[in-house]
């Protein structure tokens, strides 16, 4: 079991079955969903239950974290290894995140990602973490840039909510380039 990660304003803790409705309420929003590759659309409570069920809280690279602010879930961040996507993204954990629309523009994503990355590097996940975003997702790419990620490759990636492949920028962060502030 892994501990919660605390940052200045946020607490990241492994997702729990009780988070299903809070997650559904935030992610079942086209303005969030249209930037994501994996979730189904339309998104039901059962999809949130299944997502939480796919996480195992033993390891940083197998679970997903609820991003909580003042006790409320405002988004999800994870750093899981998806073996099926290794040829695309490289042999390491892959950082992924989303934030409910009501919470955009406050720097929460950068803060959460920075907290998770610091814990992950300290825990010895390796020297490289991969991430990425659909090519038109400037907000996400800007978050990654602030953390020290650089563009690595570009691919077409299937966006499940949108039902086809779209250009996707893959990024990577080496430990020595990680910007902690």
């Amino acid at each position, binding site marked *: 079991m892994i501990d919660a990660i605390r940052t200045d304003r946020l607490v990241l803790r492994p997702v729990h079955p009780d988070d299903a409705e809070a997650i559904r309420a935030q992610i079942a929003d086209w303005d969030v969903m249209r930037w994501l*590759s994996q979730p189904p659309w339309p998104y039901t409570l059962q999809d949130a239950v299944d997502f939480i069920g796919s996480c195992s809280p033993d390891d940083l690279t197998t679970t997903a974290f609820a991003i909580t602010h003042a006790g409320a879930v405002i988004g999800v961040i994870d750093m899981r290894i998806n*073996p*099926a*996507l*290794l*040829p*695309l993204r490289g042999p390491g954990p892959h950082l992924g995140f989303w934030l409910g629309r009501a919470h955009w523009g406050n720097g929460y994503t950068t803060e959460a990602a920075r907290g998770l990355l610091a814990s992950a590097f300290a825990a010895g996940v390796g020297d490289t973490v991969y991430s990425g975003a659909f*090519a*038109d997702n400037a907000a996400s790419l800007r978050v990654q840039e602030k953390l020290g990620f650089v*563009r690595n*490759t*570009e*691919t*077409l*990636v*299937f966006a*499940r909510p*949108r*039902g*086809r*492949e779209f*250009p*996707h*920028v893959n990024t990577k962060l080496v430990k020595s380039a990680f910007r902690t502030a």
Partner: protein
Amino acid sequence: MMVACAVLPAAARSAAGPTNPFLRLPMVTIATHRLVLRPFRRSDAKEFTRLAGDWSVASMTSDIPHPLSEGQARGWLKPGRREVRFAIELEGRLIGGAGYYQRRSGTAELGFWLGREWWGRGYATEATRAVVHYGIEVKRLPGFTSSHFVDNNASAGVLRKLGFEPTGRGRIICTARGYEVEAVTYWLPARYAVQAQPVMARAASAGRWRAWLSRLAGRPA
């Protein structure tokens, strides 16, 4: 489940159109819903030999010899100058290939094959749909052609699902069989490929299609 990759004379200049500013880096992999398409590697030779060494696979392609040696397989895995060849991977395992040969005129001949144990689950449709999308949206190809031998219903099903329309018949050499085999030929103009996409995709592509039409008609877009 595969289509003949017609072997056509190599030609010169790349006909790829203007590039999208987002796509400056080489795009050599595609993640579809269930599959990953990536370049072939030398280490694929063994599994490729096993999968494509199957008569039921090789006899439906134009250019896979039978029997297939690992040396021949290594040669086959290297794409020619105007070829794009993706390995189709499912959960880390090689299951087939898909790609195209681009003609001087710009249109491309689509080809694909799957190992026999992977037939019947929609993988060929999923992989070729992504390859066609890549060719049209990223490489700005004006359209695709393809073909299958007359005794290959599975590939006919794939091409129709993608929106390809039959254009006629021809005889294409089948290396495995050692003689020319009657084939059905197809085409898919970019417009139809766009229409075969879900609704969300259409708006972005309509302008490009109009531009291509105008070029065809000799008018500025």
